[in-house]
């Protein structure tokens, strides 16, 4: 028995230039907020952006972006609707925002199904919001999405850092490219996260200070884009993620090594 879905995934992502996986091994560090805000920021820069929520059991990006009425169109596959200029795909279209209690095999099947039937078309960037952990979702993304590059979210919490280092170990072991690490929810002046990343040879992209107003912007993209959080994120991506131009479009460095960066500029 051969599952034909595996074969078609690359074709479905053929016109997607970059895939950015927003991940962290720890929950509650701001992955969904970062993924949603990044998608918004890039869309506002004029890029063709998609956002896929892979946190099947606890999806949040639709809540953050205030997406209620949108639904995909069926046309020889599933075409995600454009919301706030972002092609948006989430399991909530099919669960009606009810629970999806999945075990590992269910997760993998669901991911494969979505990747096999979703027609993204041409995208400059597909942002993927990940569930916490380094289990099924991370392993499947590494297995199925060869273009994936990881943006890792940490916080100054020792607990979060401890988990993040395990994610980095996995990514480095599997040679999955890491764009860099953002430290979110910073409160003091500790440089622990930055130092740890340097020690592990991972690019430290910058810090975002704890924004106690962020909760008020959930569900309202106009408010969200004006938050301190969004402004800090924008500074980080303009400084660190738009490093070279390719046909007038920004390019992400595939990872922190100069060799790979050079390659992507001339690709």
């Amino acid at each position, binding site marked *: 028995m051969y599952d*034909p879905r595996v*074969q078609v995934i690359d074709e479905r992502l053929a016109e997607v230039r970059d895939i950015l996986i927003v991940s962290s091994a720890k929950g509650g560090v701001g992955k969904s907020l970062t993924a949603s805000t990044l998608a918004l920021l890039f869309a506002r820069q004029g890029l063709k952006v998609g956002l896929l929520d892979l946190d099947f059991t606890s999806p949040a990006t639709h809540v953050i972006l205030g997406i209620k009425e949108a639904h995909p169109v*069926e046309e*020889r596959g599933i075409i995600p609707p454009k919301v706030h200029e972002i092609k948006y795909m989430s399991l909530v279209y099919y669960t*009606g925002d009810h629970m999806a209690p999945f075990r590992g095999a269910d997760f993998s099947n669901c991911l494969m199904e979505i990747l096999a039937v979703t027609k993204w078309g041409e995208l400059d960037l597909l942002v993927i919001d990940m569930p916490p952990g380094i289990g099924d979702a991370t392993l499947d993304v590494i297995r199925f999405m060869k273009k994936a590059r990881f943006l890792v979210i940490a916080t100054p919490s020792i607990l979060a850092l401890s988990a993040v280092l395990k994610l980095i170990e996995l990514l480095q072991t599997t040679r999955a490219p890491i764009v860099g690490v953002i430290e979110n929810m910073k409160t003091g002046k500790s440089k622990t996260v930055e130092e740890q990343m340097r020690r592990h040879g991972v690019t430290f992209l910058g810090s975002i200070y704890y924004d106690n107003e962020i909760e008020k912007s959930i569900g309202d993209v106009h408010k969200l884009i004006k938050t301190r959080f969004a402004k800090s994120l924008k500074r980080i991506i303009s400084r660190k993620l738009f490093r070279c131009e390719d046909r007038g479009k920004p390019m992400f460095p595939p990872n922190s090594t100069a060799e790979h960066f050079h390659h992507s500029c001339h690709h």
Partner: protein
Amino acid sequence: MHEWALAEAVVSAVSRIADNEGFKEVVEVKLKIGELQQVEAEIIEFALAQLRTEKMANTKFTISTEKAQFKCRNCGNTWLFQHKEFADEVSEAIHFIPEVAHTYVRCPRCGSPDFDILGGRGIYIESVVGVGKDV
């Protein structure tokens, strides 16, 4: 119709298998469609006829269906899924993403949503028969 997307996946996978096996021509492809997903065999057949490659010009596609069977992890009960017990929107959601059965279906004996889908999901290639190995 997302049957087209599935048919594209089948054609793509059969092409790869034919290339790997060195087939000049694909004679027969046996497909199994899970009942859970309620994929329309006629649409798949039509889509395959449109999408088939040169090597598949004369391929006979045989499609069989497999009953959707669940087994409760909580109490061990096994049961068959019946679409008619669910609203159209639910059937449609399961049609696209079979795993959302966990959102809507409960074990008839103990009410748990923790069950395995033993069979009847998705679309699988059971066998590919080809001739004329390239030398």
